[in-house]
Structures are given as C-alpha cells and as structure tokens.
C-alpha cells in the first residue's frame, strides 16, 4: 500500500509530469489559435480553454467524444502538480526563494484565470448623442423580457434567460399571472413574410406579429462579423386557460403588446441587459485622423456620468487606452457608427487585480532565481581567473 502511495506521490510531484503538462498546454494553445480562423475567439475559449476536454464529433454522427484535454483539465493538473511538488519537497532555503515566488505567482495566476472565466461579464453599450443609458447589452446572450407597462410611471420587467427557453419547458413564477411554455426555439433563424412563402406550414403563433411570418432555422454562426438571431414560439396560459401563442425573435425590433386581466403587457426577445446603478450619457463622439490620410489617430467619447441619488454628476472623456473605471465597471472605447454613435465595451471583472499580483510575483521570482545563477557564474569565473 505504501509502495503504491509512493508511486502515486512520485508521479504527481514529478518534473516529468510538469513537462508533459507544459507541452500539452503549448499544443492546446497552438491548436486553439489555428481554430480561431473557423470558430472565432469566443467559441474557441469555450471549446478549448473553459472546458475539461476538447470534444469532437465522430464524423457522420452526433456523438461527441473527448479528443484532447481541455484548459480546465490541464490547468487543474498543473495546479495539483505545482502544489504537491512544493509541499512534498519544501525546504526553506534562500537559494530556492526565487523558484518559490515564481511558482506561488503561477498558482495565483491559474486561479485568477479560473475566477475570470467564471466571474467576468462583458457587454456593449451603444450610445447615441444625448440619450442616457444605465445598462449594457450582451453580444452573445438573449433574454425574453415580459414587461408590465400598465403604470405609466414605471415598467415592471421579468427577464427570462435564453437558457430557460432552450429547454422547451413550462415556466411559472409568482411575478407573472400566467405560465410560459416554449413550443420551439431556434438559436439562429431568419424570418420570411408569410405571403412570400405560400407553401409554409401554418404558424404555431396566433397572436402578435407571429401569424405574418415564417420562421426558418439557420445554422449557428461563430464569425466575428456575423450575429445569431434567435427565434422562439411561446404559449401563455392563465388560470382560466390558454391566452395565446406568440412568435418572439431578436429580428423583431418592436415589442408585441397585449392586455390580460386589465394589465398591459409587452413581450420582447432582446439582447440580455446588464444593469448598472448609474447612467451614462454621450455628449460627443470624436474620430480624428492624421492629416491627409485615413489613418485613425484617436477615437474618443465625452460622456456624462450620473447616479440616481444625484451625488455623482460629472463629465468624463473616454478615449483609446484610457477607459472609465467606476463602480466596479470599466468602460472602453470599442467602436463607433456613422461618426456620431459611440460603442463602449463594458466589463465587470471582480478578479481583475489577481493577474497584476501574480505576475509581479513571478517576475520577481524569475529575477531572483536567474540573478542567483548569474552571480554563481560570475563568482565561478572570478575564481577560475584568480589562480592564473
């Protein structure tokens, strides 16, 4: 038993395992980089790095099998290997201090990347001059917003994430006087006017815009310059029975309105919104080029930052390499449209400070370690030169 345990411990603390894991991670990064040409950077992250195994379909079937260890797998093993090796071989020596620091930093870096993968949230904020916004929109996720607009002074919004629609189940919540049943869900779709597709099957939808359209399922796209347009059919049922079936889609830019039990409701499938407790108003977007050329010199947005309690109300200039950081959110100049609409990227990453700490530790550790090597080398040469 002890012999068995020793084999086990030796394996997990060995440098050989370290080298194998480093080589695997190098291969993983290389293959993932190549695959970005097909999948785009976001899908590649999900497939290669934020996964235990890289899965691939057996050609001709829908069966996916693991073909390569994924980022979490390699990273996890590397973490175990690092920690185990250091616990097992721990000696408090000056000579080892550099190695210790570098590896402690590395452990922190791996953990930080894990936290970032789990906690980071990104959205886009499209700002037209003069309009105030207090939310960012996801570029990848959508939600079904069910809005009670009865009271003119506020809206009561229930947002259902697309994950719940995908399951094709029935949703019941005390916040709504009806249940929602998803009859069909297409992650990417096109809508065609019904009068242009005379042979199409009758629409499951009988309320709202739905009967006018035929929804066609489309393959999901990963390209950076293309977008997915999900569509769903949802059936609403009240206590007295069926209310109706609606077609909801991000292709429909207007909400669909209906009344039920004296309340006015709106239904809309839209990009998932991330709210923040303050608002941003675009005052002016500028786009400068170098004289006599089209080479962009700078993009900048002058915005007004306001909190509802009136304690913060100031102007901020956001420009290239100079984001606005406020309330745990960071706003970056990401793009523009028509030289007047500014597009900001909004990121919330509570673990943003970890890479700074861990990388400083590693760099310091490497400097100490290689410095010790260098000193030893110089001393040796001096000793070799002295007797001559």
């Amino acid at each position, binding site marked *: 038993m002890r012999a068995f345990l020793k084999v086990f411990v030796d394996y997990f603390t060995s440098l050989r395992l*370290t080298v194998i894991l480093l080589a695997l991670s190098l291969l993983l990064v290389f293959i993932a*980089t190549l695959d970005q040409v097909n999948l785009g950077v976001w899908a590649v992250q999900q497939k290669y790095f934020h996964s235990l195994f890289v899965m691939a379909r057996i050609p001709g079937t829908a069966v996916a099998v693991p073909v390569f260890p994924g980022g979490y797998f390699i990273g996890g093993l590397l973490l175990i290997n690092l920690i185990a090796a250091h616990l097992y071989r721990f000696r408090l020596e000056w000579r080892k201090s550099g190695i210790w620091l570098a590896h402690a930093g590395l452990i922190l870096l791996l953990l930080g990347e894990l936290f970032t993968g789990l906690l980071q949230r990104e959205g886009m904020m499209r700002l037209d001059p003069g309009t105030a916004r207090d939310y960012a929109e996801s570029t990848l996720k959508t939600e079904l917003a069910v809005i009670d607009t009865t009271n003119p002074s506020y809206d009561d919004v229930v947002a259902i994430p697309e994950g719940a629609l995908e399951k094709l189940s029935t949703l019941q919540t005390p916040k709504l006087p009806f249940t929602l049943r998803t009859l069909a869900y297409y992650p990417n779709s096109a809508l065609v006017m019904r009068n242009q597709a005379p042979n199409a099957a009758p629409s499951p939808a009988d309320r709202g815009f739905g009967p006018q359209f035929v929804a066609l399922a489309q393959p999901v796209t990963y390209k950076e310059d293309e977008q997915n347009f999900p569509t769903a059919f949802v059936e609403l049922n009240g206590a007295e029975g069926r209310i109706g079936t609606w077609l909801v889609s991000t292709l429909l830019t207007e909400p669909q309105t209906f009344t039920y039990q004296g309340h006015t409701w709106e239904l809309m499938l839209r990009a998932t919104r991330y709210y923040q407790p303050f608002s941003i108003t675009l005052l002016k977007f500028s786009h400068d080029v170098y004289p006599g050329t089209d080479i962009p010199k700078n993009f900048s947005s002058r915005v007004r930052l306001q909190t509802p309690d009136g304690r913060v109300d100031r102007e901020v200039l956001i420009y290239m390499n100079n984001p606005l950081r406020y309330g745990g959110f960071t706003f970056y100049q990401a793009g523009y449209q028509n030289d007047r609409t500014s597009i900001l990227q909004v990121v919330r990453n509570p673990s943003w400070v970890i890479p700074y700490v861990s990388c400083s530790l590693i760099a310091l550790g490497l400097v100490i370690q290689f410095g010790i090597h260098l000193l030893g080398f110089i001393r040796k040469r001096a000793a070799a030169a002295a007797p001559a």
Partner: protein
Amino acid sequence: MKKFLPLLVLLLGLVYLGSTLLPPRTKSDFDLRGFGRLPILVNGRLKPLDTVARNTLLVFQGKQDFTAPDGQPLQPVEWLLDVLFNPTVADSYQHFVIYNPEVVGLFNKQAGTQEYFSFNDLRGGLAELERQERMAEPVDEGVRTPFQRGVVDLYQRLILYQRLKASVNLEDSPDFLAELLKFQQALPAISTAFLAKEAGKPYNNQDYKTLTDFVSRFQYLSDSGYLLAIPPAPGNSDPNAWQKAGDALLATFRQGAINPDVMAYAALGHAWRLKQPKDFNEIVRLYTGQLMKRFAPQLQRCRIETVFNRAQPFYSGMIFYVLAVLLALVSWMKWPDVLQPAAFWVMALAFAASTAGIATRMWLEGRPPVTNLYSSALFVGWVAVALCVILERIYRNAIGTVAGGMIGFGTLLIAHHLSLSGDTMEMMRAVLDSNYWLATHVVVVTMGYGSTYLAGFLAIIYIVRGLFTRSLDKGTADALTRMVYGIVCFATLFSFSGTVLGGIWADQSWGRFWGWDPKENGALIIVLWNAIILHCRWGGMIRQRGLMMLAVFGNVVTSWSYFGTNLLGVGLHSYGFTQGTFTWLVGFAASQVLIIALAAIPLDKWRSFRPAGGKPGLATP
C-alpha cells in the same frame, strides 16, 4: 603586430562608416541637398523630399539606385525632380520592375527580355491592366493568384506615379510657371466676370470660360496630387495644416492672390527643366529661409533625416555582419589570435551602425524603438547582437561573433524586404498611439524574441561544429552549453515579462487581461517553450545535446509567434500581413527540424566526438 592588426581593422571600419556620412561625390550645379531637405507632408508625417524619392524608388523598383537611359546614375532627388517637373523625360525612365511574366505579357512584351519598364513602355497596355485590376481587386488579398497580385501591385504603383507627377506641376502644361503667371494676369478680369455672373449682371463670356478652365485644371491637381507640399499660410505654424498645391490654387479665388509657395515650386520646376542652376539654388535658399521662420525644428529633423537616408547605416551593418561571420569562421581554423578580435571589432562596428540607425529613427519619430514589423526586425537583431557582444567579451571564442553576425545579417535582410512596401516610419493607429506601452510591452516582448532566437542559433553552432568538424572540444562544448542555458533563462524572463505587460496593456485598453488573441497566444507559447526547456534541464531529462535540440526548436516557435500569427488574419494584431511570408516560414521551420534531426544522429558518429584520431571521445553530452 598581432595586437595591431585587429585595431587596424577597427580603424578602417570606422573610416568607412564615417565616410557614409559625407555628401556624395557626384557633383551637380544644382543644390540637390537643399532641395532634398525641403519638407512635405505625406501619410500623416512631415518628411524631406529625399525620403519621398528613396521610398518611392524602393516601391517602384526594389532599390534606391537609379540609372537614366543614357547610362548616367541619378541621385534619388534628381530622379524625383524629373518625375515632378520633367514628366516627359521621367516617362522614359525604366523604373517599374515587373517580375510576373503574365503581367509582362499584358503589355505585348516578351517575358524574360526585360524586367524594368518605363511608363512609355507600359502605355499601350494600360487599358487592359485597368480591366484586369478591376477583376483582381475584389478578390481577397490572401487568395489572389500571383498574376492577380502582380496586376494589383503594378496598378497601385502606376497610380502612385501619376499622383506624384500631379503634386506641384500640371503634366500637360508646357511651362507651369508661365501658366500661373498668365493666371495671375487674368485674375482681375475673371474675378469681375465671376462676380457679375453671380449677381445676374452681364459678364464677359471669354473671361468666364478662362475661369472655368483654370478651375477644372486646378481641381485635377487637387484630386490627384500626392504630396501635401504647400505649407500653411504665414503666421500659422500648425505642422498639420499643410495642403496640396491644387487646393492652394483653388483657394486663390478666396484670397485674391496666388499662393507664393505654389509659385516657388513652379519656379523650381522651370529652372530645373531649363537647366538654370543659379535660379534653382536661389529659390531653394529663399524658400528654405521662409520655412525656417516657422518650422525650424521640423527642418532640422528633415536635415538629419536626409543624412540618415544617405548614410544607410543598416546597409553598412549588413556588410559588416557578413564580414564578421567570415572572419570568425576562418578563425576557428587559422590564426585565431588575430582573426577573433578582428571579427569581434567588425561585429561591434556593425552593431554601432545599427544602434545609430535605430537611435536616429527613434529621435525622428519621437517613439520607442519598435513601432511596426520593420522596426521589430531591426530591434530583434539588435537585442541578439547586444547579447552576443557581451558573450564574446566573456568567452572570447568567436562563437558570439558568428551567432551575432548571422542573426544581425538575417534580421537586417528581413527588414530590408519589409521596407519595400513604402515609408517605414508610419503614423501609429489609434490604439497603438501610446509611447508608454510601446516602450514597455513591445520592447520587452521583442527582447524575448531576440534572445530566444539567439539561444537557437548558438545551439545550431554547437550541432554543426560537433557533427561536421573536429573543432568542438570539451571546453567549447561546455561553454556553449552555459551560453545557451543562460540565454534561455534571459529569454524566459523577458518573454514572460513582455507577455504580462501586453496583458496589462490589454486590461488597461479594452478590459481583459487575457483575450486569447493569436499574438498573445504566440507570446505565451514562447514562454511555455522556454519553461519546458528549463524544467527538462532541471529534471535531468536532457543533457547537452537535448538542450541544443530543444533550443533549435525555439527558432520555430518564435518564428510562428512573430510572423505566423499575423498570417491567420484574425485578432487584434493582424497587422503587417506579408505575402509570401508563409512559404519562407515553412521553409525556415523545415530547415530547423532538419537540424534537429541531424542532431539526433548517435554521438559516436559526430566528428568532434568520434573516438578515432587520437583524441579521446567525449561521451558526456
């Protein structure tokens, strides 16, 4: 004597380098230097006409030397003067190089008979070229056939040529100065006609027609002109307010008088065409004096830039690097006492020349050393050679000289090919416009590239000397091992720090520390590879030979990160897409794998380690 020979070599080299700073010997009655220093604005940067001349020649024909049809070698500014002011002569200059035989075929010429063509040579096929260009242009750059690439490339060069000709002169005007003087005389009359017509009163039809004729001619200059040659009006020293001659002429109607700087250029052209050096030189002097009052620092910069252009420090560097390698290689067989220090000094001179070149570029641009692919090639070489200078001072065995010379020459050659696409001092795109991050992330990560290459080249020296020669004795082998190990440590530190600084820039600029962008991944792969080498070494998994094999593969890894990731055409760093790079990259990688395969030959077959020949074999590596 043995002591003085290397110093003599150093002295000769210094004299040669000094001589490159002197003005050219070919005497001209025209003040070509003064003209070459005149500043103009193009591609967002104020630069001397000398730079325009040299860069355009590089784009047109891949080299700066030009010989007129009568066999007379022309200085780049002389060539430019003919293009600007004497277009009928310039049209007969064979300065368009065409390599693709199918493209040559478009002009009813037989491929293989000539490579260089004049505008007159190409005139007959311009319509067909334009038709082909319209078909080739929409095709994605990466998938164009060699013919399509040739067509688009030639078309763009011809457009540039036509635009250059329309910078400060009207091509179809027999004497542009005379035409402008006529315009000046007619100005009162045509202004009257214009105002009268605007007010709905009777006006002189002839005068009005003269007006519209002039406007359409100047409009052509405004639309086609390439150089922003006309400085802002007196009193305005905004270095960005320069304009085209055409726009300045169109402004005449608002200002009531012709812009004097346009007149100055027209007068220069007149004097150049009629070969009147006295007038020419006087105009250059007066015009420079005028500019001096407002743009003294810019003129100073232009002056230094023309000296830099003429000295071509990177060209001298290339020659010296080759010389250093040759001397050092010979030193391993014969006269090491003389040749090794001589080779070292030659390498040091080459290093000094490229240091001066890089420093001048930094001063001219007001930027850290690395701003684009071209300057990164220069800097990769500079870092590697700097380390080699240190290694050679420590070990004095010519290994540092050979490695430094090879990398120095190789990187300068790559840089030369990258310079063929135009001005290498470009303006920085918005997101890169940050000296702080260029100075930290880009410089440090480039030092990582340079040192990883150096480790690889040192390892190649070990393998080649050990396998093919008897010169790798135990002392040399151990020294090489320590060098490679030390350089790998250095490379690990710098590639790691550089990658992290890139992450910090990314976090500061667009909110994520790590975005799995191809270039980021490339840098990460270099770090991982260096870490693998070090851990293998520490774990006793490799010894001397294994270390060398892994270090050589570092060349492949670095080349992939440096050039390969740009070829993918995705991500934030997909700048500097270079056609044909892929073939070179694959070829280089294959050569490195071949060297690794050679190193795998059993040690008792290596000439240096073979037990035969009296020397005891070294079984340790």
